[in-house]
């Protein structure tokens, strides 16, 4: 069982700019894949391609396993509904509609005392923790993480990382982020996303070295662009007029 992206090309701005060019990526069930990429390289779009919510591409995608939505996604939550109602919606959607599911999510998120409260009336930490817990409580073959494992308070982040590390070996993860350290803490295979392609690295140190080097290049490029924007015009009016 796998998700297989074959020769994926994505263009935008009416085809003038290319995000991916003949990108190939295969994720097997049970694999722990990290995708390291600097900002604006298309990490979130790649995750959308993996889970099947991006339609605008050329190429072929074969998917014969259940893929989650990115855990940090929580726009399905209704603020005027209770936590239990929001959890039940996902339960119904994924075919796990029972009270045990509500309790399980409440326990993972550490928010059991708020289950019958409206989400809008709950403290701020509840929402990100709930988003993580709802996703992880449903049995998917691959869980997706976009940018970070979870939001919420520091203790919960540690708890969540522990849960991800101890996931059943048959369950895989795909974690896309620009934080190399966070990726390497829970992934076995690293891909580096750069200029529309992904390159696989078995050796973590080698991957980190390369990732830092392209980060340096990107930073230099941004600095040059900024300098060009901020630099005063070469010729002032007096020179143009020949005075």
């Amino acid at each position, binding site marked *: 069982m796998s998700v297989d992206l074959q020769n994926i090309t994505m263009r935008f701005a009416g085809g003038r700019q290319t995000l991916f060019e003949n990108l190939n990526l295969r994720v097997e069930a049970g694999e722990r894949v990290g995708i390291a990429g600097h900002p604006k390289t298309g990490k979130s779009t790649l995750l*959308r391609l993996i889970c099947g919510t991006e339609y605008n591409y050329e190429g072929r995608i074969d998917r014969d396993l259940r893929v989650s939505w990115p855990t940090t996604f929580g*726009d399905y939550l*209704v603020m005027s509904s209770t936590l239990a109602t929001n959890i039940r919606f996902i339960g119904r959607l994924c075919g796990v509609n029972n009270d045990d599911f509500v309790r399980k999510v409440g326990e993972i998120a550490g928010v059991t005392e708020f289950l019958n409260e409206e989400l809008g009336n709950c403290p701020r930490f509840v929402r990100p923790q709930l988003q993580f817990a709802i996703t992880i409580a449903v049995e998917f073959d691959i869980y997706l993480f976009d940018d970070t494992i979870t939001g919420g308070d520091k203790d919960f982040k540690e708890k969540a990382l522990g849960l991800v590390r101890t996931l059943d070996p048959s369950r895989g993860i795909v974690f896309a982020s620009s934080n190399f350290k966070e990726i390497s803490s829970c992934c076995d295979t690293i891909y580096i996303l750069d200029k529309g392609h992904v390159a696989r690295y078995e050796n973590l140190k080698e991957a980190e070295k390369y990732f830092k080097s392209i980060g340096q290049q990107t930073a230099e490029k941004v600095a040059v662009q900024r300098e060009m924007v901020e630099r005063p015009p070469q010729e002032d009016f007096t020179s143009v007029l020949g005075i």
Partner: protein
Amino acid sequence: MYRSWQAQLRVLTALTLREMQSQNSSLDYGYAWALIDVCLSITALTLLKVFIKALSPPGMPPILFLVSGMLPWLTFQSTATAIESAIVRNKRLLAMPQITPLDLAIARALQIFCTYGVVFIGAAVGCTYFENAPPPRSIVGVTIVYIASWLLGLAYGLVTMPLSRVFPPAGKIIGLVWRFGLLMSGVFFVITFFPEWAWPYLDWNPMLHAEELTRTYWFSSYQTPVGSPLYLTECLAGLAILGLALERYVRSRIPI
């Protein structure tokens, strides 16, 4: 195959219940307001009809005549106009791989069908009792035509939703349809109120067929001269195929 249908049904149930729960959820009595809203619309139109003293055809109780015309029309119109807003309002749900724009459209349509269906049954039973009228000649016939009106609204909404995304002024043109549609679809009248030479100009409208057939299946004193189940089915199938094809075409090309 069976599993994918089961999963589809699960998604639609979850979305429909979510629509019902989130509708008016900030108010006390929540979803009841949706039912009250429909009842008030019908009452307002009935009062308008009484006020303008339009005649009902002989043998048809006036309020029941209106209810039999208005509810299929309101179901059709509300379904057709709600499709686009349902997708735009819930577009963030499309980040979940289980949900497609079509699911959002169907779930919203199902929610409208349930709401208006309950009101239709309540109004029909109440008016039959109030006006001491006989029950419908064919309950099955009325039900099938009512479902067809709802499906026609869904199919029409699926056609107009991609059109107004590709060509935004289309939304204005579509708006005109509703203004004429209410008058031309036989909600307040039956076709025999119009001169016979006008019938060919009116009977292209599938909703007129739905209204005519509803009255025929309901009242034993009325037999429609134009209503055709075959024409209604053809329009429904044609619009549904066109709508599904357009939705599929636009989905991968134009972001919501």
